[in-house]
């Protein structure tokens, strides 16, 4: 394909490197340095999509981040990404893109029938129509809307790309590398400040790339290149292109998305696709420039109608003509700059200026070049469906209400300039209350809220000379405050053409008898008539008008539409624009990939993984792991073809008959040390701790202040002032914070220190009738007899040369011990236990068997201590001291907590002794009762009792104390099960607790 609209010379693209790419299946050629948009335009392609609601043909409107139309589905290296702006996507060899929102093709789109039905699709159409009948919503309306609406399609595949997060600090962060940003960066850098300069485009320089100015006897573009080259050599400066600062958050935290690889055919090895920067800046210079705004006229969404600045950019940066018969429609001098560029390249434009008698240097230049200029003239409507073919134009009266005789002139593009809108998003996000500047008909930042300053066009200053002066000064002053350096920089001479005042004119009236759609928001198909309807229907707040009409929503966030929408509302409401106000600017300024926001925290990296020192042994021995908080714990050890049920039953059975060993490293461990340690324990636990002798352990329950059980565990007195506290795996961090809270804030007089020792100790629970025999062999020099180491006793021992702590505590209800060694020796300990335990038929057991053992013993755990239960509910009221005060005690007097029929833990057995009861099932009296069937309680934990060989569950049941022997139903609508059950004691096995003391 030839690039018929590429001019012979000029532009900043690399003409030595041709790139081929595909759009809608057709192959085209472009150059290195093109965007997808400029390359398509070079090939004369103007039709790129269909509009959101009416499916009207869509072309290109802008040349950058403001683009409302040219949103495509991109295919790159086997991946696809939706909602890519063709004006931002850099061309690479092999790029593929497709139009969105059209079916079957962009040229013939079925949905375009909406265009003819548009009289039926006014503002608020969905709200009004799809209300009823209610049942239609899910079945008919929503699927229909989803199919018909929407832009691109997200990939359902796993994203193979990598995204990085980076935290950075700097003295001065600069958003935008136009003249203001460059001057500010240069001055600050010369003062030794740490500077980050961010530019969203691939090329630095902003407006200097396209404007006809001189700085210090060089062209603006050359000056910018020189400054950037020098900044790049400075060690205190970071210069980043393809990097969009999209959010300004609290305390001068800004977030920037750097597109590291999007411009390449595939991501380089070890490179991320995007990098998200969290930047904490002492000062921020917002030099984000301005965006040209359109003038509203009939059919102003026809492909070929675009911003005049975009036409100029395609010509000057990419060497591409957007048309050969351009019509420039302007209310200010900017349109003339575009016309002059056309003329310089041998194309004759016609300029329509809404002003009567404008005079300026730029206009003089245009006149001298012989450009056809019509004053007091406007475009009434564009003609043509898939591309502009001609324009209806007319003269306009001075009050802008009366149109003269309509004439039709041939043209192939209409370049519109309705003056400039400062990009104030970042300043507004910072909390800056914006103010309306009459002279430019737009909002500019007001009083700075955080340490931010907005300069140049973003601040409504369009004179280069003034911009450079204020920006050099600001860069010096801001950096001087921080670095105390004061290196004076001479501000270069500026040659620029002076402009005249723009015309406060933004919307062409409809000619008599014509009903052209005049669009305000091009991405969402919001026309003047839609806003009129919203106002007629009583919507007043601009925020409501926005949501009702969708004006300013979607991926371009109204960058080209907001101000014209405000003008319209203010005109109809007869208010001034500042009284109408603008909608809130919220981050992100431009769409950011979800991948970039998530970073590397995906899949197994979404949280840290903690492993015990014995992890590799478990792996080698066929452990199947389960997530326990952030820990990986063996759930069971698979033998042959066993499933979870078979394996856990075998493991639990072996504990009951022989001996088993379980990795309990994950239990939270806290060292409590100090002369007041016992007093602290006495206050945080519900039971008494002052009389616990050295070398003894005690089980304790701690409450929150509201009386709800927070955690349980055993604490052992290692020595006079040293206690070893254990917590559940899940609550370890919370318990530590809880203790620190009381020690630091409530009872600072207590002389106690607490520190987490979870990772310092590896733990193995040895449980079963043969556990003492095994222990004796492991510690031949220690007296581990029932007298030497009684239940809840503690001693230190020598495990083949390794110092070990031995606790006689039991979670399984069997005779059991816990052995702790320093983490480094964990694997050694485990291997020794397995080796010595072989003669006692030892087997390792996982969390599933662990649960089985504790459930049939009626020991409570996380599923009962679920943040909704008090000690009584868990049959732990025996541990609640009546003599002393403790955290949460006062709450236990609440009337609901002492109610006669208070819920309480019970055991549940299915009548058929066969059917396992799903956890979470509700207990009800009558399985046939009408819904909602009154719930008496719920199943908290279920197991297969290895002692009795039938299913057994624990439940928290209303009036559980008096329900033993009752017959109820366990209902699980999720599993579609109704199981007749009998309520029994929660202590199903060894109710007297004889085994642990044996």
């Amino acid at each position, binding site marked *: 394909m030839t690039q018929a609209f590429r001019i012979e010379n000029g532009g900043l693209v690399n003409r030595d490197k041709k790139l081929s790419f595909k759009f809608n299946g057709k192959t085209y050629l472009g150059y290195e340095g093109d965007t997808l948009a400029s390359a398509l335009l070079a090939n004369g392609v103007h039709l790129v999509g269909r509009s959101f609601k009416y499916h009207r043909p869509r072309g290109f409107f802008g040349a950058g981040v403001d683009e409302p139309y040219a949103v495509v589905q991109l295919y790159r290296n086997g991946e696809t990404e939706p909602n890519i702006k063709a004006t931002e996507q850099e061309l690479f060899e092999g790029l593929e893109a497709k139009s969105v929102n059209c079916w079957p093709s962009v040229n013939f789109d079925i949905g375009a029938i909406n265009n003819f039905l548009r009289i039926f699709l006014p503002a608020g159409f969905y709200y009004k129509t799809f209300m009823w009948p209610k049942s239609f919503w899910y079945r008919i309306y929503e699927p229909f809307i989803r199919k018909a609406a929407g832009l691109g399609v997200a990939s359902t595949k796993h994203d193979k790309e990598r995204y990085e997060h980076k935290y950075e600090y700097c003295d001065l962060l600069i958003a935008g590398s136009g003249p203001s940003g460059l001057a500010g960066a240069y001055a600050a850098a010369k003062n030794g400040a740490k500077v980050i300069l961010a530019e969203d485009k691939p090329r630095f320089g902003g407006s200097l790339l396209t404007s006809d100015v001189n700085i210090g006897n060089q062209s603006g573009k050359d000056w910018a290149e020189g400054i950037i080259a020098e900044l790049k050599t400075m060690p205190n400066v970071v210069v980043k292109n393809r990097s969009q600062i999209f959010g300004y958050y609290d305390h001068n935290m800004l977030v920037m998305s750097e597109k590291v690889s999007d411009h390449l055919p595939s991501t380089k090895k070890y490179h991320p696709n995007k990098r998200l920067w969290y930047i904490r800046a002492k000062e921020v210079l917002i030099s984000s420039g301005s965006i040209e705004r359109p003038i509203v006229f009939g059919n102003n969404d026809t492909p070929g109608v675009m911003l005049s600045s975009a036409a100029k950019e395609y010509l000057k940066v990419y060497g591409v003509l957007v048309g050969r018969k351009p019509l420039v429609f302007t209310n200010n001098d900017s349109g003339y700059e575009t016309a002059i560029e056309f003329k310089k390249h041998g194309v004759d434009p016609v300029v329509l200026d809404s002003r009567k008698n404008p005079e300026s240097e730029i206009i003089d230049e245009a006149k001298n070049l012989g450009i056809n200029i019509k004053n007091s003239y406007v475009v009434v409507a564009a003609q043509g469906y898939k591309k502009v073919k001609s324009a209806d134009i007319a003269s306009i009266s001075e009050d802008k209400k009366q149109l003269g005789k309509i004439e039709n002139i041939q043209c192939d593009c209409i370049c519109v300039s309705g003056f400039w809108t400062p990009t104030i998003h970042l300043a507004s996000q910072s909390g800056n209350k914006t103010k309306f500047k009459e002279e430019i008909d737009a909002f500019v930042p007001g009083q700075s809220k955080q340490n931010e300053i907005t300069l140049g066009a973003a601040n409504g200053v369009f004179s280069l000379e003034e911009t450079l002066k204020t920006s050099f000064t600001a860069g010096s002053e801001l950096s001087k405050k921080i670095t105390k350096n004061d290196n004076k920089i001479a501000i270069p001479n500026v040659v620029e053409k002076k402009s005249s005042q723009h015309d406060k004119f933004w919307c062409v009236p409809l000619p008599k008898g014509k009903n052209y759609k005049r669009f305000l928001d091009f991405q969402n198909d919001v026309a003047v008539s839609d806003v009129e309807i919203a106002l007629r229907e009583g919507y007043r707040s601009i925020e409501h008008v926005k949501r009702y009409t969708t004006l300013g929503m979607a991926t371009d966030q109204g960058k080209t539409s907001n101000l014209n929408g405000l003008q319209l509302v203010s005109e109809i409401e007869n208010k001034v624009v500042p009284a109408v106000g603008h909608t809130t600017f919220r981050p992100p300024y431009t769409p950011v990939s979800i991948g970039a926001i998530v970073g590397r925290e995906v899949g197994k990296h979404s949280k840290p993984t903690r492993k015990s020192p014995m992890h590799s042994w478990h792996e080698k021995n066929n452990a199947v792991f389960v997530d326990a908080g952030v820990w990986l714990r063996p759930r069971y050890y698979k033998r042959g073809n066993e499933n979870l049920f078979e394996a856990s039953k075998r493991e639990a059975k072996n504990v009951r008959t022989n001996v088993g060993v379980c990795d309990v490293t994950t239990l939270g461990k806290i060292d409590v040390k100090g002369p007041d340690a016992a007093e602290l324990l006495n206050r945080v636990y519900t039971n008494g701790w002052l009389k616990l002798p050295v070398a003894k352990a005690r089980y304790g329950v701690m409450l929150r202040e509201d009386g709800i059980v927070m955690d349980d565990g055993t604490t052992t007195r290692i020595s006079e002032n040293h206690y070893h506290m254990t917590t559940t795996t899940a609550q370890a961090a919370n318990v530590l914070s809880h203790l620190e*809270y009381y020690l630091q804030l409530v009872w*600072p007089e207590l002389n106690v220190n607490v520190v987490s020792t979870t990772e310092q100790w590896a733990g193995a629970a040895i449980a079963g009738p043969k556990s003492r025999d095994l222990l004796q062999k492991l510690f031949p020099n220690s007296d581990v007899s029932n007298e030497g180491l009684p239940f809840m006793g503690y001693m230190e021992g020598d495990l083949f040369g390794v110092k070990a702590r031995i606790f006689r505590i039991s979670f399984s209800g069997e005779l059991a011990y816990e052995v702790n060694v320093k983490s480094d020796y964990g694997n050694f300990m485990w291997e020794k236990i397995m080796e010595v335990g072989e003669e006692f038929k030892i087997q390792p057991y996982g969390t599933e068997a662990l649960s089985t053992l504790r459930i049939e013993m009626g020991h409570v755990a996380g599923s009962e201590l679920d943040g909704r239960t008090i000690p009584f509910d868990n049959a732990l009221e025996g541990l609640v001291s009546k003599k*002393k005060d403790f955290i949460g005690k006062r709450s236990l007097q609440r009337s609901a907590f002492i109610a006669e029929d208070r819920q309480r833990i019970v055991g549940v057995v299915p009548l058929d002794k066969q059917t396992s009861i799903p956890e979470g099932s509700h207990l009800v009296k009558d399985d046939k009762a009408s819904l909602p069937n009154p719930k008496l309680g719920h199943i908290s934990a279920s197991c297969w009792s290895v002692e009795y060989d039938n299913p057994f569950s624990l439940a928290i049941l209303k009036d559980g104390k008096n329900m033993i022997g009752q017959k109820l139903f366990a209902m699980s609508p999720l599993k579609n099960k109704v199981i007749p059950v009998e309520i029994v004691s929660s202590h199903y096995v060894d109710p007297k607790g004889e085994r642990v003391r044996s």
Partner: protein
Amino acid sequence: MLYINCPHCGMRSQNEFSYGGDASVKRPELNKEVSDQEWDSFVYNRKSLRGKHLELWQHISGCRQWIKVERDTATHEIFRTFKADEEVA
């Protein structure tokens, strides 16, 4: 993201801290008779202030100290920070 001046460690990002609620709440003394109402206020009742608020934060991924932070709940401006045992004037 807030930037909090830990009185022990200096300026640190919010993600090193965890929030601990109203710092002006005083726990009733142990072993003291407390009316239902008084206890209820202590456990449950908190003002949802707009404006200056003295609150607790714990520097959980740092020095683990609980600190007091005087912050505007509407603007997120932080005025002053204090150590746990520092009197707030």
